[in-house]
């Protein structure tokens, strides 16, 4: 029996505001336990929440970036349940009136573009962290993360393969990084994805039973988990049994999922409107101000690079994956006037460095300005390819301007015709054996002369000029 896979994702992204969602505690990963907390995010009796305006702005940005409608009227609700990482025993979230709804995100699957529907994006608060004590039989709770602002992005069940799920998550990650609302570090938990998956007989319209999978901590794991779940459900259905609606926990190291003790589908959250927070009413002016402050999004940028700069799709894709990289590309292209050259250098040298040293290189001394200056020198032929690499190495260490480095290391290609001519004449005349070899047709002698002349000129001469003058000189003897 062949099955169609139906996947929906629930993605949680931590917003990188300075302070938490309802209090003025620092919003930062890590720290000694319970040192970034206050009575509000600890839910102490008598405390009250006050909404961080930036959270609202970032959420709207995310909604606009995903082509969502922004609700004119939106409110908060309490989601009530007991768990030790939840200090109030309820989470302030949004139930039936989220800030953003009814949007879509386009992804590239092979050569095709596919639209994945976004059901909604809403605001909620994060919970604390529970850890097992290594020494005693107990659990320990750190509430530093309690009150960190989250957006939850819920897709429509439009994803149809594990690979698509991974691509989709990558796309979301890029978008959120582009608009700078989240740093999307899955390993730190600032981006989390839950996978909802069901199977239906191929071509049928009857939806299958959906399971939910949690604890997916990397892009690779999304694909692996979805794949494993599709296979697990297929095995069940093939054997004539029923798939049960359940919540499962993915274990990436084992490559399989396990039934979780708490069956979420039987949880009654008793949602009701949050009385401590007034509703949010958004007018067009407010939304348009935010819309105007949005950067150009990855796909649009990619299209533009292809059309305006003539960059091939593959290159444009890779460059626009990372906003900082794309910014460097654009600035450098503007300065040196040769986008293809810039693109080639990014695809080779810069990418190589990124693979070796990570993305921090994009926040180092290297920027669009100096990269552009360097490639301009190269494009004009004032330095050689090898010298350019040397300049980048130096630049990353010292932050000097490329021109300064070139001067300091004496890398400028020399084109003094009279000096070259003198040297050529001198080398030729002082190597009669080689000259005889050349006249008698031994082409190797040319290389010999080139080597000697370049060495005499400390390798700084423009090789093509030397070649030209040497050829002319040797002609006289033929």
């Amino acid at each position, binding site marked *: 029996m062949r099955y169609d896979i139906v996947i929906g994702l629930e993605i949680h992204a931590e917003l990188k*505001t*300075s*302070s938490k969602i309802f*209090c*003025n*505690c*620092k*919003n930062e990963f890590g720290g*000694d*336990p*319970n*040192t*970034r*907390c*206050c*009575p509000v995010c*600890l839910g*102490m009796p008598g405390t009250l929440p*006050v*909404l*961080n*305006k*930036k*959270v*609202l702005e970032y959420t709207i940005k995310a909604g606009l970036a995903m082509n969502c409608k922004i609700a004119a009227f939106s*409110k908060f609700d309490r989601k009530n349940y*007991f768990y*030790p990482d939840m200090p109030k*025993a309820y989470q302030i979230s949004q139930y039936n009136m989220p800030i953003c709804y009814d949007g879509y995100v386009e992804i590239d699957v092979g050569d095709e573009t596919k639209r994945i529907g976004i059901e909604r994006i809403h605001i909620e608060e994060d919970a604390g962290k*529970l*850890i*097992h*004590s290594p020494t*005693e*039989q*107990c*659990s*320990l*709770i*750190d*509430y530093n993360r309690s009150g960190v602002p989250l957006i939850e992005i819920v897709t429509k069940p439009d994803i149809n393969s594990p690979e698509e799920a991974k691509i989709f998550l990558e796309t979301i990650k890029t978008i959120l990084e582009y608009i700078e609302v989240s740093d999307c570090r899955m390993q730190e938990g600032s981006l989390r994805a839950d996978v909802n998956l069901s199977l239906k007989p191929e071509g049928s319209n009857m939806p299958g039973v959906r399971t939910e999978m*949690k*604890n997916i901590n990397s892009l690779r794991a999304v694909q692996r988990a979805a794949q494993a779940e599709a296979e697990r459900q297929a095995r069940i259905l093939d054997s004539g049994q029923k798939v049960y609606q359940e919540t499962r*926990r993915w274990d990436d190291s084992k490559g399989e999922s396990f039934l*979780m*003790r*708490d069956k979420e589908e039987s949880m*009654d959250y*008793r949602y009701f*409107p949050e*009385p401590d*927070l*007034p*509703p*949010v*009413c958004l007018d067009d002016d407010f939304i348009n101000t935010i819309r105007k402050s949005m950067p150009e999004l990855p796909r649009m940028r990619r299209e533009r690079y292809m059309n305006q700069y003539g960059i091939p799709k593959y290159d444009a894709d890779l460059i626009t994956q990372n906003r900082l990289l794309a910014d460097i590309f654009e600035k450098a292209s503007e300065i040196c006037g040769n986008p293809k050259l810039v693109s080639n250098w990014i695809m080779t040298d810069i990418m190589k460095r990124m693979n070796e040293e990570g993305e921090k290189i994009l926040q180092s001394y290297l920027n669009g300005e100096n990269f552009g200056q360097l490639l301009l020198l190269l494009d004009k032929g004032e330095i050689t390819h090898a010298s350019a690499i040397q300049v980048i190495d130096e630049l990353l260490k010292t932050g000097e301007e490329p021109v300064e480095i070139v001067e300091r290391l004496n890398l400028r290609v020399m084109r003094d015709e009279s000096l070259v001519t003198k040297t050529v004449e001198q080398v030729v005349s002082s190597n009669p054996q080689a000259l005889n070899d050349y006249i008698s047709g031994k082409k190797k002698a040319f290389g010999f002369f080139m080597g000697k002349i370049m060495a005499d000129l400390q390798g700084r001469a423009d090789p093509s000029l030397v070649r030209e003058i040497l050829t002319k000189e040797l002609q006289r003897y033929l």
Partner: protein
Amino acid sequence: MAADVEIIKKIADLAAVFIEENELEAYAEELDTIIKYMEELKSIETGNEKPMEHVLAINNVFRDDVVTNENMRDDLIKNASLSKDGYFKVPPVVDLL
């Protein structure tokens, strides 16, 4: 019965409150009386009335994104009867995510 012992057990579990076996009957009776009275609401004609979710007609109450709180762990943890190395301490939780 609006509330019998079975319902009380279920609700008590949802509310994370333990009711002693010998008290269940009493609670069930009391709550049954109370709920039946409250159910008078059902017969009220509310027509197109919208649920009043907020008393005040205010919207858009925000604060600026600034950090003003510092480490106040000692104050926060002093009311906890059990803590360890700056953490709050509980019996082992089985389903750690």
